[in-house]
């Protein structure tokens, strides 16, 4: 089950995730996180402790980045593990979200 902690720095919100980014994260993303993120100008999603992803989880990630971008909130995704990034690359997530999103 995915859990997270947040760190607020001025107008930047950093979210450190822990656990698998999968279909079970749907509620977490859509109900809690989105609302919280909308209060900031930029958001950094730290995936350092996310060892596994599934297709629904990646769908959520894309949806989240798009929703925030529409509201002109900049999103960065950081510390993606090598294995997870391999999966992202197979699905061309860097091309979908923009290469500069991944830091």
């Amino acid at each position, binding site marked *: 089950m995915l859990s997270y902690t947040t760190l607020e720095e001025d107008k930047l919100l950093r979210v450190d995730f822990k656990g698998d980014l999968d*279909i079970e994260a749907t509620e977490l993303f859509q109900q809690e996180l989105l609302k919280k993120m909308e209060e900031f100008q930029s958001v950094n999603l730290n995936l350092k402790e996310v060892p596994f992803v599934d297709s629904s989880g990646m769908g959520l990630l894309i949806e989240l980045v798009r929703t925030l971008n529409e509201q002109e909130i900049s999103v960065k995704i950081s510390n993606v593990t090598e294995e997870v990034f391999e999966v992202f690359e197979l699905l061309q997530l860097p091309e979908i979200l923009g290469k500069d999103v991944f830091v």
Partner: protein
Amino acid sequence: MKSIVSKGRNVKEAIQLGLDLLKATVDDVHVEIIDQGSKGFLGIGGKPATVRLTKEQEHAQKDAFDQIEKALLEQTVDENTEKVAAFIKDQTAEVVTSQWTEGSQLEGKAWVKNGKLYGRPSATQFPIITIGKGVQVYKNDILIDKETLLITGSHEYTIRTINEEQSTRWSIEVDDQRLRVLLAITPGYRIERSIHDIEPSEHIELVAAEHRVVDNTLTYADVMDRLDNLRIKQGFHQDAILQALDTLEEHTFEIATGQKPKPGKDGWFEVLVDVDIKYNYDGNEKGRIDFKELKTIPSVDRGQIIGLVHPPVPGQPGTTVTNEPLPAKQTYPIVLNLGDGVEGVDNKVVAIKSGRPHVEKRGQLVRVSLLPKLLHRGNVDLSTGNIHFSGDVEVLGEIQNGMKVEADGDILAHSTIFSAHLVTSGAIIAKKNVVGSELSAGKNNMLIVELGHQLHLIHQQLDKMLVVIKQLMASNAFKSSDLQANGLQPLIRLLMERKFKSFSGLIKKYSDVIHGADKFLESDEWKEVAVTLNRFFLSLAPNRISLATLDELLLKINQLYEWSITPVEPNAHITVLSVQNSRLYSSGDIYVIGSGSVNTKIHAGGLLKINGIARGGDLYGKSGVEIHEVGAENSHATTFISVPADQRIRIDKVMEGTVIKIGHVKYRFDTPRHAVHAYLKDDDIAFV
């Protein structure tokens, strides 16, 4: 012989220092002044004097040796802190020696004797040495890595020649089918180099003499060991192995061969009756075409055997070099599709009524039927209505005023076709003029080729998509838990987001063609595939898709594609007397056997042949175009003729303004020309 080089403020001091080092007197040594030295100006730029002392008595050597070593450790001479440079020569490391004194003609020259390099710079000339391949020269034990060397003075030069050695390299490879074992060998060799004597010269080239010895070290045991490792058990060619052991050149030997499987034969349908309509296009001796004699229509009577079904003959399996059976390619029986008027009895197809036998072959699919024939004696016009008939249609009168004749056999029109529309999957023969009409023969096939092409593109994408899905499932960080619950749909959506962005467009395009062509399609399979593709990939409704269902879809798409590219026999064709302001479309050949064509668009899936004149219009022949005469004098109408890149255009007489196109290359005739025979050569149109 031992010699030392000694330096001092002047010659006298240099000699004295040298003698002290050698513990010798002037009488014992040979003195050679290498450099007189110079005082310089105000002590700046001065050069020490250099001399060489050579002690000639053998017994003094060891003693001198020790002394020099000792001296080198202890003694520092001269206010310029110039060290006494002392070089000891051993027997192999050779230098400027006492032989220098043999003559002043050696001044400024270098030479090689007995494998040793000598050189003697003069006041005006430094000898130049060019160092050749495989030769190394060491200056004071340091390798010179330049190709040219100046001998500037009292240094020790050593020549070394490099021998090259390459061991025998070999490898054994077995092909994928394990039918051939190849031994590739490059025998080893040794190149021995030596330096010959070189006469004294201001410039000498140190070129080594090379002696090359080939040495094939491969042994029979080596080969057998490797073959054993590869588990190769049979089909050896001992003579080839022995040849490989002896060869002195790089070569590849086939040292074992398996037995190829003997191919079998697919089942086939043997036609026992005449099914082809015979045409006589050449005309009689006057060059006129007699339509009464043009065509012979075959027919069969009730009970007659139309053909025999032959079962497939299986092939003989082969054996690999590893002694495993290699199955022959599987053979398939024909798939017999019996249409109207025929019945199957054992392996025979029998007519149960009389009519024209029709046999259509597409790969292993054979369709046999007896075509009924409709004979229409009058005109086809508003009073009779359109004709739709599944079989042959023969019209004795005219076809006119926007009327339509549709058949799935042959259409034979005895009179003029004016402003009409003829469609059939068979042939169309018009004995009189065709004006302002549209004739389409074998349309069904053209459609299937188009659909097949689109399915092929879809197949490629879907195949790639499956590969990516399988790759993802194998990724360590990919969790497939939700795939079990929801199927592949979320993943497919992600893939179509970017990586397979064009996929939805391909499906839409295919669906559109299906939608428009619905009623022309014999089989529902084309439509079913379109429905499935839409449901799986375009629909937003939840849908459980598994890998197995995708694999199944892929297989089905491929079958349809394979079927679409299998040529139909016999091909449809169109034969008309002459044609004006019309459109002719045939999946096979088109013949215009009378006066010719005017302002007509003609598309032939086979050969296009016009015996008369072609004036204006757009003419295409997939298997080439042959026309007697193209264009007209003082005519502004352009006639455009095209063929694929690998085909030819032949015209007996072409008028200006005609444009031909072969592949993508166009050519315009600005002057009339006879006996044109054009083809594509090096991306340009050439004439025979």
